[in-house]
Protein backbone atom coordinates (compact mmCIF):
# COMPACT_ATOMS: atom_id res chain seq x y z
CA UNK A 1 0.00 0.00 0.00
CA UNK A 2 2.84 2.38 0.94
CA UNK A 3 6.28 1.45 -0.29
CA UNK A 4 9.40 3.56 0.37
CA UNK A 5 12.58 2.42 -1.34
CA UNK A 6 15.78 4.11 -0.18
CA UNK A 7 14.09 7.50 0.12
CA UNK A 8 16.13 10.57 1.02
CA UNK A 9 14.67 14.02 1.50
CA UNK A 10 16.75 17.12 2.14
CA UNK A 11 14.88 20.40 2.52
CA UNK A 12 16.28 23.45 0.80
CA UNK A 13 18.61 25.51 3.05
CA UNK A 14 19.28 22.54 5.30
CA UNK A 15 22.26 20.27 5.10
CA UNK A 16 20.95 17.50 7.37
CA UNK A 17 18.47 15.21 5.59
CA UNK A 18 14.95 15.00 7.04
CA UNK A 19 14.76 11.41 5.81
CA UNK A 20 17.95 9.47 5.20
CA UNK A 21 17.78 6.39 2.96
CA UNK A 22 14.49 5.15 4.37
CA UNK A 23 13.01 1.88 3.13
CA UNK A 24 9.73 0.70 4.53
CA UNK A 25 6.66 -1.26 3.43
CA UNK A 26 3.16 -0.82 4.76
CA UNK A 27 0.68 -3.46 3.63
CA UNK A 28 -2.99 -3.07 2.94
CA UNK A 29 -5.06 -2.95 6.13
CA UNK A 30 -2.09 -2.49 8.44
CA UNK A 31 -2.04 -0.15 11.46
CA UNK A 32 1.38 1.46 11.85
CA UNK A 33 2.70 3.83 14.52
CA UNK A 34 5.41 6.17 13.41
CA UNK A 35 7.30 7.25 16.53
CA UNK A 36 10.36 9.28 17.30
CA UNK A 37 11.31 12.70 18.71
CA UNK A 38 10.41 15.99 17.04
CA UNK A 39 12.42 16.53 13.89
CA UNK A 40 13.01 12.83 13.38
CA UNK A 41 11.21 12.88 10.01
CA UNK A 42 7.69 11.65 10.87
CA UNK A 43 5.88 14.58 9.27
CA UNK A 44 8.19 14.49 6.28
CA UNK A 45 7.24 10.84 5.79
CA UNK A 46 3.53 11.73 5.74
CA UNK A 47 4.07 14.71 3.42
CA UNK A 48 5.95 12.50 1.00
CA UNK A 49 3.07 10.00 0.94
CA UNK A 50 0.70 12.86 -0.01
CA UNK A 51 3.16 14.12 -2.64
CA UNK A 52 3.24 17.47 -0.89
CA UNK A 53 7.00 17.10 -1.10
CA UNK A 54 9.23 15.26 -3.51
CA UNK A 55 12.10 13.05 -2.39
CA UNK A 56 15.63 13.93 -3.49
CA UNK A 57 16.28 10.30 -4.23
CA UNK A 58 14.59 6.95 -3.91
CA UNK A 59 11.20 5.69 -5.07
CA UNK A 60 7.81 6.00 -3.40
CA UNK A 61 4.77 3.90 -4.35
CA UNK A 62 1.40 4.70 -2.84
CA UNK A 63 -1.73 2.67 -3.65
CA UNK A 64 0.15 1.08 -6.51
CA UNK A 65 1.21 4.37 -8.06
CA UNK A 66 4.81 5.49 -8.58
CA UNK A 67 4.68 9.04 -7.21
CA UNK A 68 7.66 10.18 -9.27
CA UNK A 69 5.73 9.36 -12.42
CA UNK A 70 2.42 10.76 -11.18
CA UNK A 71 1.72 14.04 -12.98
CA UNK A 72 0.76 17.08 -10.91
CA UNK A 73 -2.59 16.99 -12.54
CA UNK A 74 -3.29 13.56 -11.08
CA UNK A 75 -2.12 14.35 -7.55
CA UNK A 76 -5.67 15.34 -6.44
CA UNK A 77 -6.85 11.86 -7.42
CA UNK A 78 -4.13 10.31 -5.27
CA UNK A 79 -5.21 12.48 -2.34
CA UNK A 80 -8.81 11.35 -2.72
CA UNK A 81 -7.64 7.87 -1.72
CA UNK A 82 -5.80 9.20 1.35
CA UNK A 83 -7.51 10.68 4.40
CA UNK A 84 -5.65 13.06 6.71
CA UNK A 85 -6.03 13.97 10.37
CA UNK A 86 -3.90 16.56 12.16
CA UNK A 87 -3.07 17.67 15.66
CA UNK A 88 -4.87 21.00 15.13
CA UNK A 89 -8.07 19.47 13.65
CA UNK A 90 -8.26 22.01 10.77
CA UNK A 91 -12.03 22.38 10.79
CA UNK A 92 -13.82 25.28 9.11
CA UNK A 93 -15.08 27.43 11.98
CA UNK A 94 -18.05 28.83 10.08
CA UNK A 95 -19.47 25.42 9.15
CA UNK A 96 -21.20 22.97 11.43
CA UNK A 97 -20.25 19.30 11.88
CA UNK A 98 -22.35 18.07 8.98
CA UNK A 99 -21.12 20.83 6.65
CA UNK A 100 -17.49 20.28 7.60
CA UNK A 101 -17.74 16.62 6.67
CA UNK A 102 -19.83 17.31 3.57
CA UNK A 103 -17.28 19.91 2.41
CA UNK A 104 -14.78 17.14 1.66
CA UNK A 105 -17.26 15.56 -0.73
CA UNK A 106 -18.58 18.81 -2.21
CA UNK A 107 -15.16 19.94 -3.32
CA UNK A 108 -14.52 16.74 -5.21
CA UNK A 109 -17.84 17.17 -6.96
CA UNK A 110 -19.89 14.36 -5.40
CA UNK A 111 -23.64 14.58 -6.03
CA UNK A 112 -25.84 16.01 -3.30
CA UNK A 113 -27.88 12.81 -2.92
CA UNK A 114 -24.73 10.82 -2.20
CA UNK A 115 -23.56 13.39 0.35
CA UNK A 116 -26.91 13.33 2.19
CA UNK A 117 -26.69 9.57 2.47
CA UNK A 118 -23.04 9.13 3.40
CA UNK A 119 -22.29 12.01 5.78
CA UNK A 120 -24.74 10.97 8.57
CA UNK A 121 -23.36 7.42 8.44
CA UNK A 122 -19.81 8.62 8.98
CA UNK A 123 -20.83 11.13 11.66
CA UNK A 124 -22.36 8.19 13.49
CA UNK A 125 -19.29 6.01 12.93
CA UNK A 126 -17.08 8.53 14.76
CA UNK A 127 -19.58 8.74 17.60
CA UNK A 128 -21.08 12.18 16.99
CA UNK A 129 -24.68 11.18 16.31
CA UNK A 130 -27.06 13.96 17.39
CA UNK A 131 -24.31 16.60 17.14
CA UNK A 132 -24.37 17.11 13.39
CA UNK A 133 -25.58 20.69 13.68
CA UNK A 134 -23.12 21.88 16.32
CA UNK A 135 -20.51 24.41 15.35
CA UNK A 136 -16.84 23.48 16.00
CA UNK A 137 -16.48 26.00 18.84
CA UNK A 138 -19.37 24.26 20.65
CA UNK A 139 -17.44 20.97 20.69
CA UNK A 140 -14.67 19.66 22.94
CA UNK A 141 -11.23 18.95 21.52
CA UNK A 142 -11.94 15.24 21.30
CA UNK A 143 -15.22 15.84 19.50
CA UNK A 144 -13.53 18.22 17.06
CA UNK A 145 -10.96 15.55 16.29
CA UNK A 146 -13.79 13.09 15.65
CA UNK A 147 -15.23 15.55 13.11
CA UNK A 148 -11.81 15.73 11.46
CA UNK A 149 -11.67 11.93 11.34
CA UNK A 150 -15.16 11.78 9.86
CA UNK A 151 -14.06 14.23 7.18
CA UNK A 152 -10.91 12.21 6.47
CA UNK A 153 -12.86 8.97 6.23
CA UNK A 154 -16.05 10.07 4.49
CA UNK A 155 -14.68 9.37 1.03
CA UNK A 156 -13.65 5.85 2.14
CA UNK A 157 -9.91 6.32 1.55
CA UNK A 158 -7.56 3.37 1.23
CA UNK A 159 -5.08 5.04 3.57
CA UNK A 160 -5.60 7.24 6.62
CA UNK A 161 -2.66 9.38 7.73
CA UNK A 162 -2.83 10.77 11.26
CA UNK A 163 -0.21 13.30 12.35
CA UNK A 164 -0.27 13.34 16.17
CA UNK A 165 -4.07 13.19 16.31
CA UNK A 166 -4.04 13.01 20.12
CA UNK A 167 -1.44 15.76 20.56
CA UNK A 168 -4.00 18.35 21.73
CA UNK A 169 -6.23 15.97 23.64
CA UNK A 170 -6.15 14.68 27.22
CA UNK A 171 -5.31 10.97 27.74
CA UNK A 172 -8.85 9.89 28.68
CA UNK A 173 -10.32 11.39 25.51
CA UNK A 174 -7.44 10.02 23.46
CA UNK A 175 -8.64 6.50 24.12
CA UNK A 176 -11.92 7.32 22.38
CA UNK A 177 -10.01 8.77 19.40
CA UNK A 178 -7.90 5.61 19.18
CA UNK A 179 -11.06 3.50 19.23
CA UNK A 180 -12.37 5.40 16.23
CA UNK A 181 -9.05 4.95 14.40
CA UNK A 182 -9.17 1.26 15.22
CA UNK A 183 -12.75 1.06 13.91
CA UNK A 184 -11.64 2.76 10.69
CA UNK A 185 -8.71 0.32 10.44
CA UNK A 186 -11.10 -2.62 10.79
CA UNK A 187 -12.99 -1.52 7.67
CA UNK A 188 -9.80 -2.37 5.76
CA UNK A 189 -8.28 1.10 5.68
CA UNK A 190 -4.53 1.26 6.17
CA UNK A 191 -3.73 3.62 9.05
CA UNK A 192 -0.38 5.35 9.58
CA UNK A 193 -0.22 7.40 12.75
CA UNK A 194 2.70 9.59 13.80
CA UNK A 195 2.74 10.12 17.55
CA UNK A 196 4.67 10.99 20.71
CA UNK A 197 2.15 9.33 22.95
CA UNK A 198 3.91 6.33 24.57
CA UNK A 199 0.86 5.19 26.53
CA UNK A 200 -1.25 4.89 23.40
CA UNK A 201 1.42 3.02 21.46
CA UNK A 202 1.97 0.63 24.31
CA UNK A 203 -1.73 -0.06 24.78
CA UNK A 204 -2.49 -0.71 21.11
CA UNK A 205 0.22 -3.31 20.45
CA UNK A 206 0.48 -2.54 16.76
CA UNK A 207 3.42 -2.30 14.40
CA UNK A 208 5.85 0.45 15.42
CA UNK A 209 8.35 2.14 13.14
CA UNK A 210 10.77 4.38 15.02
CA UNK A 211 12.61 7.20 13.29
CA UNK A 212 15.61 9.04 14.61
CA UNK A 213 17.44 11.77 12.68
CA UNK A 214 15.72 10.63 9.52
CA UNK A 215 16.72 6.99 9.85
CA UNK A 216 14.62 3.98 10.76
CA UNK A 217 16.08 2.63 13.97
CA UNK A 218 13.37 0.07 14.78
CA UNK A 219 10.51 -1.71 13.02
CA UNK A 220 8.57 -4.08 15.29
CA UNK A 221 5.40 -5.86 14.36
CA UNK A 222 3.78 -5.71 17.84
CA UNK A 223 5.81 -3.02 19.44
CA UNK A 224 5.80 -0.54 22.29
CA UNK A 225 7.00 3.08 22.35
CA UNK A 226 10.25 1.83 23.75
CA UNK A 227 11.71 4.69 25.82
CA UNK A 228 11.83 2.46 28.89
CA UNK A 229 15.17 0.80 28.34
Amino acid sequence: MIHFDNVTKVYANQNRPALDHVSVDVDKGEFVFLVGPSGSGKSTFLRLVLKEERPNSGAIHVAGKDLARLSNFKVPHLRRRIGCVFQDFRLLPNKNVYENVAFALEVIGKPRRFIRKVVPEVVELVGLEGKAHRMPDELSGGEQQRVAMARAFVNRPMILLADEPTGNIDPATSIGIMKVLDRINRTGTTVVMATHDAAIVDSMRKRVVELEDGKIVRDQSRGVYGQAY
Partner: protein
Amino acid sequence: MRANFIFSEVWIGLRRNLTMTIAVIVTVAIGMALLGIGLMINAQVGSMSSYWSDKVQLSAFLCAKNSPFDACKGRGGVSQQEKVALQKQIEAMPQVDRVTFENQEKAYENFKAAYSSNSVFLSAVKVEDMPESFRVKLKNPDDYKAVFDALSGAAGVANVVNDQQLLDRFFGLMNRLRSAALVVALIQVFAAILLIGNTVRLSAYNRRRETGIMRLVGASNLYIQLPFVMEGTIAGLVGGVISAVLLMFAKIVIFDSMQKFFALATQLTWSDVAQVITLTTVVGVLICILASFVTLRRYLRV
Protein backbone atom coordinates in the same frame (compact mmCIF):
# COMPACT_ATOMS: atom_id res chain seq x y z
CA MET B 1 -18.86 19.96 -10.82
CA ARG B 2 -21.24 21.59 -8.40
CA ALA B 3 -22.16 24.98 -9.77
CA ASN B 4 -24.03 26.29 -6.75
CA PHE B 5 -21.17 25.30 -4.46
CA ILE B 6 -18.73 27.32 -6.57
CA PHE B 7 -21.10 30.27 -6.75
CA SER B 8 -21.65 30.37 -3.01
CA GLU B 9 -17.86 30.37 -2.53
CA VAL B 10 -17.53 33.19 -5.06
CA TRP B 11 -20.25 35.20 -3.36
CA ILE B 12 -18.58 34.79 0.05
CA GLY B 13 -15.25 35.80 -1.46
CA LEU B 14 -16.65 38.91 -3.12
CA ARG B 15 -18.44 40.01 0.05
CA ARG B 16 -15.41 39.50 2.26
CA ASN B 17 -13.32 41.74 0.01
CA LEU B 18 -16.05 44.23 -0.76
CA THR B 19 -13.83 47.33 -0.78
CA MET B 20 -11.22 45.71 -2.99
CA THR B 21 -13.93 44.40 -5.29
CA ILE B 22 -15.40 47.88 -5.67
CA ALA B 23 -11.93 49.29 -6.39
CA VAL B 24 -11.43 46.67 -9.11
CA ILE B 25 -14.85 47.37 -10.63
CA VAL B 26 -14.30 51.14 -10.71
CA THR B 27 -10.82 50.84 -12.17
CA VAL B 28 -11.91 48.39 -14.84
CA ALA B 29 -14.96 50.54 -15.67
CA ILE B 30 -12.92 53.71 -16.14
CA GLY B 31 -10.12 51.97 -17.98
CA MET B 32 -12.46 50.22 -20.38
CA ALA B 33 -14.56 53.37 -20.90
CA LEU B 34 -11.45 55.29 -21.91
CA LEU B 35 -10.28 52.48 -24.15
CA GLY B 36 -13.77 52.50 -25.69
CA ILE B 37 -13.70 56.25 -26.23
CA GLY B 38 -10.36 55.89 -27.96
CA LEU B 39 -11.86 53.24 -30.23
CA MET B 40 -14.96 55.36 -30.86
CA ILE B 41 -12.80 58.33 -31.88
CA ASN B 42 -10.98 55.95 -34.18
CA ALA B 43 -14.24 54.83 -35.74
CA GLN B 44 -15.42 58.43 -36.12
CA VAL B 45 -12.16 59.51 -37.76
CA GLY B 46 -12.20 56.46 -39.99
CA SER B 47 -15.73 57.00 -41.25
CA MET B 48 -15.07 60.70 -41.70
CA SER B 49 -11.89 60.29 -43.66
CA SER B 50 -13.51 57.78 -45.99
CA TYR B 51 -16.48 60.09 -46.37
CA TRP B 52 -14.25 63.06 -47.18
CA SER B 53 -11.57 61.34 -49.21
CA ASP B 54 -13.33 61.86 -52.56
CA LYS B 55 -14.93 65.15 -51.54
CA VAL B 56 -11.99 67.29 -50.45
CA GLN B 57 -11.61 70.32 -52.64
CA LEU B 58 -10.18 73.82 -52.75
CA SER B 59 -12.83 76.48 -52.61
CA ALA B 60 -12.04 79.90 -54.02
CA PHE B 61 -14.68 82.28 -52.71
CA LEU B 62 -15.24 85.31 -54.88
CA CYS B 63 -15.75 88.89 -53.81
CA ALA B 64 -19.34 90.00 -53.30
CA LYS B 65 -20.44 93.63 -53.03
CA ASN B 66 -19.60 94.11 -49.38
CA SER B 67 -17.08 91.39 -48.73
CA PRO B 68 -15.15 92.01 -45.51
CA PHE B 69 -12.00 90.31 -46.85
CA ASP B 70 -8.88 92.43 -47.43
CA ALA B 71 -8.56 91.18 -51.00
CA CYS B 72 -11.95 92.70 -51.87
CA LYS B 73 -11.46 96.07 -50.06
CA GLY B 74 -11.81 99.14 -52.31
CA ARG B 75 -13.57 97.36 -55.13
CA GLY B 76 -17.04 96.08 -55.85
CA GLY B 77 -18.09 92.47 -56.47
CA VAL B 78 -16.28 90.26 -58.90
CA SER B 79 -16.84 91.09 -62.56
CA GLN B 80 -17.94 88.71 -65.26
CA GLN B 81 -14.58 89.02 -67.08
CA GLU B 82 -12.72 88.18 -63.91
CA LYS B 83 -14.81 85.06 -63.45
CA VAL B 84 -14.10 83.88 -66.98
CA ALA B 85 -10.40 84.63 -66.57
CA LEU B 86 -10.29 82.76 -63.26
CA GLN B 87 -12.02 79.74 -64.72
CA LYS B 88 -9.52 79.65 -67.60
CA GLN B 89 -6.60 80.08 -65.20
CA ILE B 90 -7.77 77.24 -62.98
CA GLU B 91 -8.49 74.87 -65.83
CA ALA B 92 -5.01 75.48 -67.20
CA MET B 93 -3.31 74.30 -64.04
CA PRO B 94 -1.89 70.73 -64.27
CA GLN B 95 -2.81 69.75 -60.69
CA VAL B 96 -6.50 70.40 -61.23
CA ASP B 97 -8.81 67.51 -61.91
CA ARG B 98 -11.94 69.55 -62.55
CA VAL B 99 -13.48 72.82 -61.50
CA THR B 100 -17.10 73.81 -60.99
CA PHE B 101 -18.65 77.20 -60.47
CA GLU B 102 -21.05 77.48 -57.57
CA ASN B 103 -23.55 80.37 -57.73
CA GLN B 104 -25.36 81.86 -54.74
CA GLU B 105 -28.48 79.64 -55.02
CA LYS B 106 -26.40 76.45 -55.20
CA ALA B 107 -24.24 77.62 -52.28
CA TYR B 108 -27.35 78.28 -50.21
CA GLU B 109 -28.71 74.81 -50.94
CA ASN B 110 -25.46 73.17 -49.89
CA PHE B 111 -25.39 75.30 -46.79
CA LYS B 112 -28.93 74.27 -45.90
CA ALA B 113 -28.05 70.60 -46.32
CA ALA B 114 -24.94 70.85 -44.17
CA TYR B 115 -26.58 72.74 -41.31
CA SER B 116 -30.04 71.15 -41.49
CA SER B 117 -29.83 70.35 -37.79
CA ASN B 118 -29.17 73.96 -36.78
CA SER B 119 -32.35 75.87 -37.49
CA VAL B 120 -31.30 79.11 -35.76
CA PHE B 121 -28.21 79.35 -37.91
CA LEU B 122 -30.25 78.57 -41.03
CA SER B 123 -32.88 81.23 -40.49
CA ALA B 124 -30.22 83.92 -39.96
CA VAL B 125 -28.61 83.36 -43.35
CA LYS B 126 -30.12 84.40 -46.68
CA VAL B 127 -29.34 83.56 -50.28
CA GLU B 128 -27.70 86.99 -50.88
CA ASP B 129 -25.27 86.32 -48.03
CA MET B 130 -23.78 83.34 -49.79
CA PRO B 131 -20.60 83.90 -51.76
CA GLU B 132 -20.04 82.61 -55.26
CA SER B 133 -17.16 80.23 -55.54
CA PHE B 134 -15.04 78.01 -57.73
CA ARG B 135 -14.86 74.48 -56.38
CA VAL B 136 -11.60 72.93 -57.46
CA LYS B 137 -11.11 69.20 -57.26
CA LEU B 138 -7.41 68.34 -57.23
CA LYS B 139 -5.87 65.23 -58.70
CA ASN B 140 -3.99 64.73 -55.45
CA PRO B 141 -5.36 66.56 -52.39
CA ASP B 142 -1.87 66.83 -50.87
CA ASP B 143 -0.69 68.75 -53.92
CA TYR B 144 -2.57 71.91 -53.13
CA LYS B 145 0.21 74.45 -52.54
CA ALA B 146 0.67 75.89 -56.07
CA VAL B 147 -3.05 76.11 -56.78
CA PHE B 148 -3.71 77.61 -53.38
CA ASP B 149 -1.07 80.33 -53.84
CA ALA B 150 -2.12 81.16 -57.38
CA LEU B 151 -5.78 81.54 -56.43
CA SER B 152 -5.07 83.49 -53.27
CA GLY B 153 -3.43 86.29 -55.25
CA ALA B 154 -5.89 86.33 -58.17
CA ALA B 155 -8.14 89.34 -58.76
CA GLY B 156 -11.73 88.91 -57.56
CA VAL B 157 -10.93 86.09 -55.13
CA ALA B 158 -11.90 86.89 -51.54
CA ASN B 159 -10.26 83.91 -49.89
CA VAL B 160 -9.30 80.31 -50.56
CA VAL B 161 -10.30 77.46 -48.28
CA ASN B 162 -8.61 74.10 -48.50
CA ASP B 163 -10.79 71.32 -47.07
CA GLN B 164 -7.73 69.17 -46.62
CA GLN B 165 -6.18 71.66 -44.20
CA LEU B 166 -9.39 71.98 -42.20
CA LEU B 167 -9.75 68.22 -42.04
CA ASP B 168 -6.12 67.75 -41.11
CA ARG B 169 -6.51 70.17 -38.24
CA PHE B 170 -9.65 68.38 -37.08
CA PHE B 171 -8.16 64.91 -37.48
CA GLY B 172 -5.06 66.11 -35.62
CA LEU B 173 -7.20 67.17 -32.69
CA MET B 174 -9.11 63.87 -32.75
CA ASN B 175 -5.89 61.88 -32.89
CA ARG B 176 -4.49 63.72 -29.90
CA LEU B 177 -7.69 63.08 -27.95
CA ARG B 178 -7.56 59.42 -28.90
CA SER B 179 -3.93 59.08 -27.83
CA ALA B 180 -4.70 60.78 -24.52
CA ALA B 181 -7.66 58.44 -23.91
CA LEU B 182 -5.60 55.37 -24.78
CA VAL B 183 -2.68 56.40 -22.57
CA VAL B 184 -4.97 56.92 -19.58
CA ALA B 185 -6.74 53.64 -20.42
CA LEU B 186 -3.39 51.86 -20.40
CA ILE B 187 -2.54 53.30 -16.98
CA GLN B 188 -5.95 52.20 -15.69
CA VAL B 189 -5.48 48.71 -17.07
CA PHE B 190 -2.13 48.54 -15.30
CA ALA B 191 -3.75 49.70 -12.05
CA ALA B 192 -6.56 47.18 -12.55
CA ILE B 193 -4.07 44.34 -12.94
CA LEU B 194 -2.29 45.30 -9.71
CA LEU B 195 -5.59 45.69 -7.87
CA ILE B 196 -6.86 42.33 -9.05
CA GLY B 197 -3.59 40.77 -8.00
CA ASN B 198 -4.01 42.23 -4.53
CA THR B 199 -7.63 41.19 -4.31
CA VAL B 200 -6.85 37.63 -5.26
CA ARG B 201 -4.00 37.60 -2.76
CA LEU B 202 -6.27 38.83 0.02
CA SER B 203 -8.92 36.38 -1.00
CA ALA B 204 -6.44 33.50 -1.04
CA TYR B 205 -5.23 34.53 2.40
CA ASN B 206 -8.78 34.80 3.77
CA ARG B 207 -9.63 31.39 2.46
CA ARG B 208 -6.37 29.60 3.18
CA ARG B 209 -8.13 27.17 5.56
CA GLU B 210 -10.66 26.19 2.94
CA THR B 211 -8.10 25.84 0.19
CA GLY B 212 -5.79 23.88 2.49
CA ILE B 213 -8.56 21.39 3.20
CA MET B 214 -9.57 21.28 -0.43
CA ARG B 215 -6.02 20.32 -1.38
CA LEU B 216 -5.91 17.65 1.30
CA VAL B 217 -9.12 15.94 0.33
CA GLY B 218 -8.09 15.95 -3.31
CA ALA B 219 -10.13 18.71 -4.90
CA SER B 220 -8.89 19.31 -8.44
CA ASN B 221 -6.88 22.45 -9.17
CA LEU B 222 -9.73 23.78 -11.27
CA TYR B 223 -12.12 23.41 -8.36
CA ILE B 224 -9.74 25.22 -6.02
CA GLN B 225 -8.88 28.00 -8.42
CA LEU B 226 -12.22 28.56 -10.07
CA PRO B 227 -13.82 30.56 -7.23
CA PHE B 228 -10.90 33.00 -7.27
CA VAL B 229 -10.90 33.37 -11.03
CA MET B 230 -14.69 33.76 -10.99
CA GLU B 231 -14.36 36.56 -8.46
CA GLY B 232 -12.05 38.38 -10.86
CA THR B 233 -14.28 37.60 -13.80
CA ILE B 234 -17.42 38.88 -12.12
CA ALA B 235 -15.67 42.06 -11.01
CA GLY B 236 -14.43 42.51 -14.58
CA LEU B 237 -17.87 41.87 -16.00
CA VAL B 238 -19.56 44.38 -13.69
CA GLY B 239 -16.83 46.89 -14.57
CA GLY B 240 -17.46 46.14 -18.25
CA VAL B 241 -21.21 46.76 -17.89
CA ILE B 242 -20.57 50.08 -16.16
CA SER B 243 -18.12 51.08 -18.88
CA ALA B 244 -20.78 50.13 -21.47
CA VAL B 245 -23.20 52.54 -19.82
CA LEU B 246 -20.50 55.22 -19.75
CA LEU B 247 -19.77 54.64 -23.45
CA MET B 248 -23.44 54.89 -24.44
CA PHE B 249 -23.59 58.10 -22.46
CA ALA B 250 -20.46 59.33 -24.25
CA LYS B 251 -22.01 58.51 -27.62
CA ILE B 252 -25.13 60.57 -26.86
CA VAL B 253 -23.56 63.45 -24.98
CA ILE B 254 -20.17 63.85 -26.65
CA PHE B 255 -20.22 62.33 -30.11
CA ASP B 256 -23.76 63.22 -31.19
CA SER B 257 -23.50 66.82 -30.00
CA MET B 258 -20.05 67.11 -31.55
CA GLN B 259 -21.56 65.95 -34.80
CA LYS B 260 -24.18 68.69 -34.61
CA PHE B 261 -21.68 71.31 -33.62
CA PHE B 262 -19.08 70.59 -36.28
CA ALA B 263 -21.51 69.37 -38.94
CA LEU B 264 -19.30 66.31 -39.27
CA ALA B 265 -21.48 64.74 -41.96
CA THR B 266 -20.93 61.24 -40.62
CA GLN B 267 -22.43 60.03 -37.41
CA LEU B 268 -21.10 57.36 -35.08
CA THR B 269 -23.73 54.64 -35.35
CA TRP B 270 -25.06 52.48 -32.53
CA SER B 271 -23.62 49.44 -34.22
CA ASP B 272 -20.17 51.06 -34.00
CA VAL B 273 -20.82 51.64 -30.31
CA ALA B 274 -22.03 48.06 -29.84
CA GLN B 275 -18.83 46.75 -31.41
CA VAL B 276 -16.72 48.96 -29.18
CA ILE B 277 -18.66 47.88 -26.06
CA THR B 278 -18.32 44.20 -26.92
CA LEU B 279 -14.61 44.60 -27.45
CA THR B 280 -13.96 46.58 -24.27
CA THR B 281 -16.04 44.20 -22.14
CA VAL B 282 -14.20 41.19 -23.52
CA VAL B 283 -10.86 42.92 -22.94
CA GLY B 284 -11.87 43.86 -19.39
CA VAL B 285 -12.95 40.34 -18.49
CA LEU B 286 -9.87 38.78 -20.11
CA ILE B 287 -7.56 41.11 -18.20
CA CYS B 288 -9.28 40.13 -14.96
CA ILE B 289 -9.07 36.40 -15.70
CA LEU B 290 -5.40 36.62 -16.68
CA ALA B 291 -4.47 38.73 -13.67
CA SER B 292 -6.29 36.29 -11.36
CA PHE B 293 -4.55 33.29 -12.85
CA VAL B 294 -1.11 34.83 -12.68
CA THR B 295 -1.51 35.83 -9.03
CA LEU B 296 -3.02 32.48 -8.11
CA ARG B 297 0.07 30.75 -9.44
CA ARG B 298 2.11 32.76 -6.97
CA TYR B 299 -0.08 32.73 -3.89
CA LEU B 300 -2.07 29.52 -4.05
CA ARG B 301 0.09 26.45 -4.01
CA VAL B 302 -1.80 23.54 -5.46
